[in-house]
């Protein structure tokens, strides 16, 4: 019932988001057809605007856009005139989602064990080393890490390809570059969660009852310690799945992240609004999934 309510509330939320995105991108100075070379006659620009209804008032364009949306049509791209926004999403999103899922697995696959390890060895050198690594992963931005990885693993060692998106080997470096930040973040969150859980009363009680440290950590502490990681996972996954401009650009990956940024720079109105909506839908859906996961993991949480 509660989740149904959340779903219904999502619809007006999406409407507000689309309206805001639509309005904001339209009030930005310059338009999609402003070019360095002005057309030979101002009439040409008017032809273009008429073709894409940009000569109408913005509210009317918005209604027209909503009408298209109702039919599952995100409209034509104004910059890539041979493609619709649906084409762009259909081609770019699977790529970004694949890379994002890999990076997500990487973030959890590295972050969780690292967090656990450092928490279990707290106060000793493995903890310092692990925590330093996690902090480093959070601090080093993708546009530094990615070229570094390319120089070391692709150009010097020649283990992996430098760029492109054709074979699985080409997914490894971008996966690491994209997932490193999240991995570090997950490790830190999980380490703190573990430490907090291990100091909590129910763990002390369990320990007093003579429960083995082993069982205690894995069965009881982990379930509570993982909650902050779960909270963070929703937005993290939404972020990873929708692609990264920097990583896609450096590794020449045909994902959706490049389109979002370039769409805004090019005033490609339909692309910007369409991708903003896509991101919003993912975020809403994944937050809902996080709430689901909470009820499953934490017996103290129940929704009415």
């Amino acid at each position, binding site marked *: 019932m509660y989740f149904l309510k959340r779903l219904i509330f999502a619809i007006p939320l999406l409407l507000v988001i689309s309206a805001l995105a639509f309005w904001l991108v339209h009030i930005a100075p*310059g338009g999609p057809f402003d070019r360095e070379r*002005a057309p030979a006659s101002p009439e040409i620009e008017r032809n273009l605007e008429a073709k894409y209804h940009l000569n109408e008032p913005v509210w009317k364009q918005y209604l027209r856009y909503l009408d298209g949306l109702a039919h599952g049509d995100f409209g034509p791209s104004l910059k890539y005139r041979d*493609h619709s926004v649906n084409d762009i999403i259909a081609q770019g999103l699977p790529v970004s989602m694949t890379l994002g899922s890999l990076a997500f697995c990487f973030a959890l696959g590295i972050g969780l064990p690292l967090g656990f390890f450092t928490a279990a060895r707290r106060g000793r050198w493995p903890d310092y080393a692990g925590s330093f690594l996690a902090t480093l992963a959070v601090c080093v931005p993708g546009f530094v890490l990615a070229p570094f990885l390319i120089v070391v693993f692709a150009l010097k060692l020649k283990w992996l390809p430098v760029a492109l998106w054709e074979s699985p080997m080409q997914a490894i470096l971008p996966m690491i570059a994209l997932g490193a930040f999240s991995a570090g973040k997950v490790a830190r969150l999980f380490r703190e969660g573990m430490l907090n859980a291990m100091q909590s009363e129910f763990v002390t009680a369990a320990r007093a009852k003579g429960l083995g440290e082993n069982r205690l950590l894995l069965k009881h502490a982990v379930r509570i310690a993982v909650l902050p990681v779960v909270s963070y996972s929703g937005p993290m996954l939404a972020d990873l799945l929708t692609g990264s401009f920097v990583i896609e650009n450096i590794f020449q990956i045909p994902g959706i992240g490049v389109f979002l940024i370039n769409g805004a720079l*090019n005033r490609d109105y339909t692309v910007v609004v369409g991708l903003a909506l896509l991101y919003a839908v993912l975020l809403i859906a994944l937050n809902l999934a996080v709430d689901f996961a909470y009820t499953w993991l934490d017996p103290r949480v129940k929704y009415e």
Partner: protein
Amino acid sequence: MKSASARSRKSEAGNRKRQFDTADKKRGATWFGVPPSGGRANAGVQTATGRALRLSQAFFCLLISAVCFLNAGCIHREPPADLTILNGAEPETLDPALLTGQPEMRIVIGMFEGLMRFDPRTARPIPGLARSVEISPDGRIYTFHLRTNLVWSTGPPITADDVWYSWIRVLNPATASDYAGQLYYLKNGEAFNTGKIKDPSLVGIHVLDKFTVRVELNHPTPFFLDVCALPVTYIVPRQTIEKYGDRWIMAKPLPSSGPYELVYWRLNDKVRLKKNPRYWDAAHTRSDIIDLLPVGSPSAALNLYMSGQADIVWDKELVPTELVDLLLKRPDFHKFDYLGTYFIRFNVTRKPFDDPRVRQALALAIDKERIVTKITRAGEQPASHLVPDGTANYLPVGGLGYDPARARQLLAEAGYPGGQGFPRFEYTFNAAAGGAAEMHQNIAIELQQMWRDELGIHMDLRQLEWKVYLNAMDHLDYSLARSSWIGDYNDPQTFLGMFTSNDGNNRTGWKSATYDALITEANEQTDLKKRAEIFQRAETLLVSNQVPIIPLFFYVGINYFDTNKIQGVYENILDDHPLQYIRKAGRESRVEGREPENANQ
């Protein structure tokens, strides 16, 4: 707390997260003091760590299986390309009527062809779909004779009707072609495009018979054959366009009139072309499959090239600026003159730049040599005039050089001795992708310093995002602005025409009846020598006397490819390279196996 409302759960989670963050900071200080629990617990931790390791192993297995899944599912089973080219930006469109940029053009000249096409060595127009052309003595009537063996890649013949349709389509307002202006040279071309006349039969293109087209022009236009080699005039398939509408280029099969057919176009990934065996000159097409990849970052381009995943990089935006001195020493980096000029625009409607003496003073105070040796560094030539050296049908004029003494004198005459009383002003430049942004900024800083030191005037820098910058230029919302122009075709008109009073590219507010008259007169002139002289008078007015612009330097083109492996890419002033002549040496046998006559070339 057995049950919590969603709202309180949410805020609780938020609090919890914040607690962790602060706990993290606090703990940093006390780490050393906290001893782990006793020995027994330690043993437990050991095994727990073991489990954690196993957990991470499981995740890695998951990861590896995901990669394997990718391997099975997503890898494209396709033959390798004979040639892989890094082509610059993602093409905005492959519709010849709509494209405006060079990356698009370089692909489209493979897929379609016009009455003329580009000579691969000189980029001058040579017969394409037209076998021959007759030009009337007054230079206004062109009669094109088509080859009689022309067919679309799908089989049907290409005839004069297709030419008529393709050109009328460009001029049709509903097509909304940015470059429709290239066909304004046709009689009634502009009137039809702007909706003043509705009947396409009044436009100056007529089908005489199946293989003959007659074109009537407004003026003798000596570069009209160049225009006939521009993609905007290429011949496109009527039936496909009428059937599929705006997105016809994605139709399958897509009829092609050029040497290559489109296999696929995956956005931001690649455009793959394969040889069109029905092309009239297919015997001379030298590569079977060509991949053209869009690349956004110069370092990615360089990495791909250096690791052998790309054969040719042919966009000068794809040369990392910080490495340009080093790279140009390599034998596989090729630099050549290019039909483009970097210049500064004045907004002459703003004081004190309404005074030509002020504009001249600013121009004379710039040490352009210093800009090209210190900042651009790719061997650009300093420019004192707008039309680049080497432009066809023209000999350039001399403009204003570097003469700070005269600059100070002119500024004093204008009422600002030693820069006294000269208002602070702004220099507008755009943010750009890759290394260009840095170059614009460094040039701006250099100018700021030169003008302060030589003239005692003070300038502020104003960097704008690209579209905002274009908007500011269009509305004359600037004082000085960095600008550039790349010629559309190889003729002075493409540079000088833009500063006529009503041209949309003028963007300076400068209007001169004398200048307009000179340009009109030049375009009425059939004698090329006289025409060049009139253009020279116009350019002298522009760059020496009135100075609404200050040319800084001429661009160079830079391509990189190994000449031992790649044949058929020639340096030319338009940096145009028809795809069908390019071949990679390692692939030679394949092509020659099928076309033995090529072996003699």
